Every structure is written in structure tokens, then in C-alpha cells.
């Protein structure tokens, strides 16, 4: 780790990864076009294509159903944004609780373990059903004001927080013990050490897997439809039932892809940036 790092080494490695240069760009473009052409040719020459085209790729139905599905999709985005914000905080809390030292905190640690085991184990769809139908069935007056949408979001938060807490925990454990020793030796308390030294480093390291979990969460917002709320998937089901045509499903799929692709690219970019940093650090 000296200042006079060899500048050639890092860039050469990156060069290989990117496969840069004018020539390789043309080769990549050409091979992509050929590949796509073959796939399209195979599909459109298949015996069932005319029927599939009519059932899934109906332009008129697409245009008709798109505005309503897009409007319903806003609900998916809302569910996603609310759930994500809560998960980021709640999961970190679980991860920190699970790492509390000393025998006094054993019950809390145990609770955190039980929680993550339980909610990573139960299929999301069951958690949504159990909360969505079970909680109102308790007939507690103070629970009555909560809508199925609320329970759907709670279910997603519970399930995804269990995953995200494990991601956070891996990040926290990956920070070397010597960092804690350095912070404590300066007189910082345990909570201060976590807040200023451990967690900032841990979170930076787990951003890519964190975003990966959120791509999963974006898709699973569709499951909330199962207990009532009309989001994009349910809206497309309604349209399919009305038109006897599957094009609205394709429409919904397109919307989900449009939402997840930027997230996926962001994840890739962050991973690449991380790798560049490590190379720079190790040089």
C-alpha cells in the first residue's frame, strides 16, 4: 500500500474486464444482432406463433389496457418505496441486536435469531395470507382501521427484513476487529463505535447484495394483490378476464422490467466501482 502504485497494473486489468477498443465494440454489436435475429426467427417460424401472437402481442389491447395498468403500477411503486424505507432501518436494528455482546442480552439475541429463521423460512405468500386474513380476524377494534394494503406491506417488511438483516450482519462481521479496538481505545463507547466506525464500513460493503434483495422486493409487491389491493398484476388479471387475451400480462411484465433494470444496472455499477477501489487500494 504505497503511494507510488504501479498505474499500469490496475488499468490493464480493467481493460481486460471491459474488453474496450473500437474493434471489440463492433464485434459485440454484430454478434448481438445475429443472436437476436436467430431467436426472433425461431419464435416467429414456430407452428404456434400466430396463436401466441394473437393471445400475447395484441397491439390494440396493449394500448387499451396500458394506461390503467400503469396507474395501478403506481401502487406497486408506493408499496415498494414504503417497504424499502422501513426495511432499511428495521433490518439494521435486527442485525445490531443480534450482535449485542454479553450474557445479559441473550434473550434479545435469541429473539433476533428466531425472527430471521422464521421469516426466511416461511414463503412470502403465506406470510401475506396469514397477516392479511389473520390479523383482521382477531376482531380487535384497534386493528380494524388497518387496510389489507397495510398488512401486505407489513408482510413484505417482515420477510425482507429477515433477509436484509442477514446481509447487514455479514457486513458488520466483515469489518475487522482491529477497527473496533482502535475506536474503543480512543474512548468511544460501544454504540458510538458501531455508529461511526463499524456500520458505515459495513453498509458500504453490502450495498450490492442489498440492492439485489430490493430487486426481489420490487417483484414481490405483486403478491400483495392476493389479499385485495388492485396493483398492476391484479389490474392485468381483470383486463385479461375482460378481453380473453393475455396481452395485459405482458404489459405488466414490461412495467416491472422497466423498474428493475435501472436497479440492476445501478447494482452492477456499484460492484464495478467497489472492485476498482479495491484494486487501487491493493496496488
Amino acid at each position: 500500500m504505497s503511494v507510488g502504485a504501479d498505474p499500469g497494473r490496475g488499468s490493464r486489468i480493467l481493460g481486460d474486464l471491459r474488453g474496450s477498443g473500437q474493434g471489440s465494440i463492433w464485434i459485440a454489436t454484430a454478434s448481438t444482432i445475429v443472436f437476436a435475429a436467430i431467436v426472433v426467427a425461431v419464435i416467429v417460424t414456430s407452428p404456434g406463433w400466430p396463436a401466441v401472437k394473437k393471445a400475447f402481442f395484441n397491439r390494440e389491447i396493449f394500448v387499451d389496457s396500458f394506461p390503467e395498468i400503469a396507474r395501478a403500477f403506481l401502487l406497486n411503486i408506493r408499496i415498494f418505496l414504503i417497504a424499502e424505507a422501513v426495511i432499511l432501518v428495521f433490518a439494521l436494528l435486527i442485525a445490531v441486536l443480534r450482535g449485542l455482546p454479553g450474557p445479559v442480552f441473550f434473550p434479545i439475541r435469541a429473539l433476533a435469531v428466531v425472527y430471521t429463521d422464521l421469516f426466511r423460512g416461511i414463503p412470502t405468500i403465506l406470510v401475506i395470507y396469514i397477516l392479511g386474513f389473520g390479523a383482521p380476524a382477531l376482531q380487535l377494534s384497534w386493528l380494524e382501521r388497518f387496510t389489507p394494503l397495510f398488512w401486505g406491506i407489513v408482510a413484505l417488511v417482515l420477510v425482507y427484513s429477515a433477509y436484509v438483516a442477514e446481509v447487514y450482519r455479514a457486513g458488520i462481521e466483515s469489518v475487522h476487529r482491529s477497527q473496533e479496538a482502535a475506536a474503543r481505545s480512543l474512548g468511544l463507547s460501544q454504540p458510538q463505535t458501531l455508529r461511526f466506525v463499524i456500520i458505515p464500513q459495513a453498509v458500504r460493503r453490502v450495498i450490492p447484495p442489498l440492492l439485489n434483495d430490493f430487486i426481489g422486493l420490487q417483484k414481490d409487491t405483486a403478491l400483495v394483490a392476493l389479499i385485495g389491493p388492485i396493483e398492476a398484476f391484479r389490474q392485468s388479471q381483470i383486463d385479461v378476464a375482460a378481453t380473453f387475451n393475455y396481452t395485459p400480462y405482458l404489459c405488466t411484465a414490461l412495467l416491472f422490467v422497466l423498474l428493475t433494470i435501472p436497479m440492476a444496472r445501478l447494482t452492477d455499477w456499484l460492484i464495478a466501482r467497489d472492485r476498482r477501489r479495491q484494486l487501487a487500494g491493493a496496488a
Partner: protein
Amino acid sequence: MSSKCQALRLDGVRKSFGKNEVLKGIDLDLAEHEVVCLIGASGSGKSTLLRCVNLLEPIDEGRIVVLGEEITAHGVKVNEVRRRIGIVFQAYNLFPHMSVLRNVTLAPRRVLGVSKDVAEAEATALLGRFGLAERRDEYPDRLSGGQQQRVAIVRALAMRPELMLLDEVTSALDPELVAEVLNVIRELAEGGMTMLIATHEMSFARDIASRVCFLDAGRILEQGPPTEIFSNPKEPRTKQFLERIIEAGRL
């Protein structure tokens, strides 16, 4: 119990990791402004001794007294003890996600409650004193090992410690970077800082220390002024250790 100018006292300190007893009854006194070097082979207990003094490791038996206060007593506020004792580690242990300036100002701001402006002004002055003024806004990864270790020393000094513990601070450095760090320590010694230094740099120990302690298998086998220890060691183990060091060309 404690004389007024006593900075550090260890009484019969014992420490085990599992069945392995690393410190087997250490007695040691440091007067204020005294610089004591701990020498001895790897695994002789030098690092553990320093970590115990900073309460990073709990001791099993004995007591440790810092400036008249027994820090190993029950109910002692660990964080308050630590802010009076600075420690610098072999591997620097800088916070990689913070700039040099934030590394240095974190503890004064969060532990001592110094305002941001004051903490930054003091840190900048300290960094300047050790030739690091221009590195203020860099991240640790961008610095050489010697610079990182000097930042680590500044970070400890920013808490205005009454006692400094240095744990083989030059062992991870390239040979040509050792001198810049040793010069910083020399300057601290000249400024009257009380220091307990674990080191493999024998010529440095000879120059700087008022007393040298030879640690062997968890005991202080021999101690005295450096001239005496290095030129006329009494214990056969000390002789053996120094002969090996001379063979390795480090004295």
C-alpha cells in the same frame, strides 16, 4: 499508595487466553515523562501487556494503576480511562472510510465534546507539526505506511493522553519508512510524553528509552538502563535474545 509522579504501575498482572498464560505476574513502574521500552521475542507478551493497560483485554489477576487511579478496580468507567491513554497499533488501524482529518477529529468531537471548528483547528495544527498538513483531506488508502502510522499517532495525541502505548508501530513498515515514524516518537519523548513502547528496533530503544525491560514467556526477566541491558545483560535468556538480534543485523 502511589507517589505523585508515578504514571503507571502494574502489580502482579496475570492474563491467560484459555490454558495459555501469556502474562505470568508482571510488576512494572513508570514515572511521569519516562520512556520505557519492552523488548523480547514475538509471543513473549509485549502486545498483550499493552492491550491490558488500555483495558482492551481484561486481566485475570493483579492491578493496574494509572496516575494514581486503579483502572482495574470494579466500577471504573472504561471509556474515561481509555481517553487518558493513547495506543498506537502495529497495523495503524486507521478508519478507512474517513479522511485523515475525520480520523483525527472523531474522538475529540464525540468523546470530549469538542466543537467541530475547534477540533479541526487542533487536528490541523497537530498534523502540521508532524508534516501531514497536506494530507488532511486524503483517505488512509492513499497514504504510505509511514504516513498512515504518523496519522495514527496524531489521532491518539488529539485526545491529549497522559500516557502513550506504542505496540510495535514500525513492524509493518518498509525499512525506508521506519525512520520518519521513529523521529515522531523521538519528538514526543523530548516533549516529555510518558510512553510504554513495545519494539523490535533495538538501536531505537537504546537511544530513546530511560529503561528497557526484557520480556520472556510472560515475565519481565530483566530491566535496567539501555546501556546496561544491551552491553551487559545478566540473564542468559537476555544474552541469547540479543545475540540473535545482532545476528539479524538489527542492533
